């Protein structure tokens, strides 16, 4: 069984982004970029399925600027077998990404696509579900456990109030939650090996996909700043503040 894992290049989760002075966006020049943490979890899960013998080939895909190659190499260092870059400088929105991924699925015919549940830059939480809709496949979102059982995947999903287990018929879409696994670190030999793995590049036009954005960002602002408050000396002072100043208890 072949698995496709879309991976996104995002601002590293340790970076606190700053809004540009002209409110046109956030300043991502000279900022550390990394693979979206949920995508790392997706790659790791695919590798574990391969190690268990349920999967034979893992193809990582990234859509975006040329530097997404680094993200693909990173995925291949964790264990993906090859990479596909869909190169564009156009700002990609989830529907466009889903259409590009559908075109790749049509070519590659995987039985499973594992995506991150959300990307930590735009926090959209859409792409996997959109891809599932475009393919008319089943979807299991916010997965915390995945088992392949014959021609179905049994997936435990994080829902309000707890967990829900569903069985999705293959081919299917799975999106990862944080507790699905802890991604391994890529070892130096694997990083070296990844450099030699196959990486194919396409343009959106090669795939026949129109990626024109549907949403325009009019402005990006800093959220209202919380003023740091005061330190209180002891528990009695805290209770006094809560009762008499904030009046919340």
């Amino acid at each position: 069984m072949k698995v496709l894992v879309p991976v996104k290049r995002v601002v590293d989760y340790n970076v606190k982004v700053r809004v540009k002075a002209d409110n046109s966006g956030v300043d991502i020049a000279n900022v550390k970029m990394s693979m979206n943490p949920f995508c790392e979890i997706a790659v790791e899960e695919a590798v574990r399925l391969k190690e268990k013998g349920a999967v034979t080939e893992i193809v990582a895909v990234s859509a975006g600027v040329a530097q997404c190659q680094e993200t693909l190499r990173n995925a291949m260092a964790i264990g993906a077998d090859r990479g596909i870059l869909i190169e564009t400088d156009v700002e990609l929105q989830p529907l466009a990404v889903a259409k590009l991924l559908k075109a790749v699925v049509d070519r590659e015919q995987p039985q499973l696509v594992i995506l991150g549940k959300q990307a930590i830059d735009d926090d959209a939480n859409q792409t996997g579900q959109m891809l599932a809709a475009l393919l008319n496949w089943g979807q299991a979102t916010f997965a915390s456990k995945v088992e392949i059982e014959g021609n179905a995947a049994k997936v435990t999903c994080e829902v309000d109030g707890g967990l829900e287990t569903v069985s999705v018929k293959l081919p299917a879409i799975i999106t990862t939650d944080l507790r699905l696994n802890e991604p391994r670190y890529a070892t130096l030999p694997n990083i070296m090996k990844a450099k030699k793995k196959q990486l194919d590049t396409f343009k959106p036009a090669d795939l026949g996909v129109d990626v024109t954005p549907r949403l325009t960002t009019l402005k990006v602002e800093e959220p209202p700043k919380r003023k740091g408050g005061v330190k209180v000396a002891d528990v009695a002072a805290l209770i006094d503040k809560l009762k008499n100043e904030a009046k919340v208890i």
Partner: protein
Amino acid sequence: MANLVIAEHDHGSLKAATLNVITAATAIGGDVHVLVVGHNAKAAADAAAQVAGVSKVLLADGAAHAHQLPENTASQVVAVAGGYTHILAPATPHGKAVAPRVAALLDKAQISDIMKVIDADTFMRPIYAGNAYATVKSSDSVKVITVRGTAFAAAAQSGGSGAVETIAALGDGGLSSFVSAEIVKLERPELTAAKIIVSGGRGLGSGEKYREVLTPLADKLGAAMGASRAAVDAGYVPNDYQVGQTGKIVAPELYIAIGMSGAIQHLAGMKDSKVIVAINKDPDAPIFSVADYGLVADLFDAVPELTAKL
């Protein structure tokens, strides 16, 4: 303009998140209709019809909707979508599973997690874990939207006079099936609706300590209980206690952060609380930079003392 709100419900009743979405729909303007997709869900539909501002409730009631599988729910939404300019769902796990599917089937973009309606095409939403707010304008003829509950007041549960109209329920699409669920029954207020939240982090050290130290305080305050991801990952509490970028977004009157450092991913989930209290033994912990009242102390001394003196 006409808005269709996808109800969040458990068949027998309407979930609170629906009420916030109805307020967002009202802010957009035009008719507000609610779609209830379920099985034996007449009670939920009747409840929706009572909500102030709702003029019509569509009820799709069928066995295929017993477990509200997102594939079937999305097909049902698309079947009635014609004529609506805005389709809205809460930004809950269910809403997030269904809405993008609806958007893609309609070939429309989705606007996720809106916090403010600027006009019928323009919305404000958080990006980068709430470190920036983007104002985005949609050029699509139909807007598919998920709504951040804490950003909109709940609509009144009475005063409405909507009519309930039963529509044909679609059959099962056969793409997925329900296996089992483990839902924890909470004795306390739900996190996203609570007035006071007592929240604990890795500083508690264990699940036993979390319960032993925090439960009496939460009981005394009638509070809901939350946690950091570190506390959830370490198994102190179940996953749905998690507050943050990838957990629940909360905005209570009072948030008491105990033994947690205040990572940006955690702050993303609670920094809109009215009053924040932090108890941490490290005077340099980042949580103090957002706390209205900070107490530098060992939590194992301070929290029992606080509970006793309240």
